[in-house]
């Protein structure tokens, strides 16, 4: 009596991913992602993207590592904060260490300084930012380039993810109100002789960051696999204290300049 034993393909890094029928690993491998921000969400999102099979990433951040980043950033070490290393460069270097087939191009600059034509070199933009101004910029440039934009945000134990699929869904700007613009004004307050930049220290920890980054990455996977119809069409809110998450409906603002 003879038989065949099915042996797992353990030499294939993505064998277990390929067992999920809906995932198209070739499309994921080919998709080019622009990750804006290399802080807590940026660390988690890059880690998730690389482990999910994305191979071409551009990572933009203007800042350097500080000690208070270390409670929620997988790629940062104390030596990075002592050496004032640039976040984008550290995450790119260590992210590529997860998979030799991955290319992560670090761009040490403000997102506002990224040349216009570089946006169009990407298929998906992931916003891992900590302020409304940079989100507005990322939202509008993605929208004009017709690139899906996946915005994440955290505050303590709560978080949110918004997926913008131009032109079908509401964009990030559609959801803003006067309280957001007040925050903007406070950040860039003009005293008459110069402009002061106020940067509030926000409560943040790793579990909320992980949840939000995971949702962002999963939405990127759906987009790469041409499963946009299954994407979050509105705004996903997560409350870590109650354990509740839900998708809240947002309508397109007829006054929004992008629509």
């Amino acid at each position, binding site marked *: 009596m003879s038989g065949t034993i099915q042996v797992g393909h353990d030499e294939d890094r993505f064998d277990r991913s390929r067992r999920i029928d809906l995932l198209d690993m070739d499309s994921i491998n080919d998709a080019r992602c622009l990750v804006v921000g290399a802080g*807590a969400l940026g660390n988690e999102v890059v880690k998730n993207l690389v482990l999910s099979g994305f191979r071409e990433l551009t990572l933009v951040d203007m800042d350097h590592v500080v000690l208070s980043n270390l409670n929620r950033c997988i790629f940062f070490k104390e030596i990075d904060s002592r050496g004032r290393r640039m976040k984008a460069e550290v995450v790119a270097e260590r992210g590529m260490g997860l998979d030799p087939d991955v290319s992560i191009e670090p761009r040490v600059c403000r997102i506002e300084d990224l040349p216009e034509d570089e946006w169009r070199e990407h298929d998906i933009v992931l916003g891992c930012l900590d302020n409304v101004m940079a989100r507005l910029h990322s939202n509008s440039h993605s929208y004009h380039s017709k690139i899906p934009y996946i915005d994440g945000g*955290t505050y303590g134990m*709560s978080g949110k993810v918004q997926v913008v699929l131009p032109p079908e869904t509401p964009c990030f700007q559609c*959801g*803003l*109100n006067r*309280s957001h613009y007040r925050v903007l004004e406070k950040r860039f307050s003009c005293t008459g002789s110069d402009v002061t930049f106020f940067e509030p220290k926000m*409560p943040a920890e790793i579990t909320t960051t992980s949840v939000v980054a995971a949702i962002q990455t999963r939405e990127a996977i759906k987009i790469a696999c041409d499963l946009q119809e299954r994407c979050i069409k509105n705004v996903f809110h997560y409350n870590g204290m109650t354990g509740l998450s839900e998708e809240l409906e947002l*309508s397109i603002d007829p*006054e929004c300049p992008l629509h």
Partner: protein
Amino acid sequence: MPLRIRVRNAETGATVDMELEAENSVEEIIEGAAGYWEKDPGAYVLRCGKRLLRGQQTVADAKIMDNDQLELIPDPEGG
């Protein structure tokens, strides 16, 4: 005729009742509630059931009804 609503603070569970006219805006509700609870200056959104209300909408536009319970949620800005 004014309508009466209740706003719940998503962070604490506290509630406050408000009387509104149809022409009041969602932004006025947000500012009224945030001011009542002396919240830190920050970005907030207001939900009504499953709907996120846009700031510029009036009470009438947003189809807010008498005795509705709305919820004030901090809009997470951190990354």
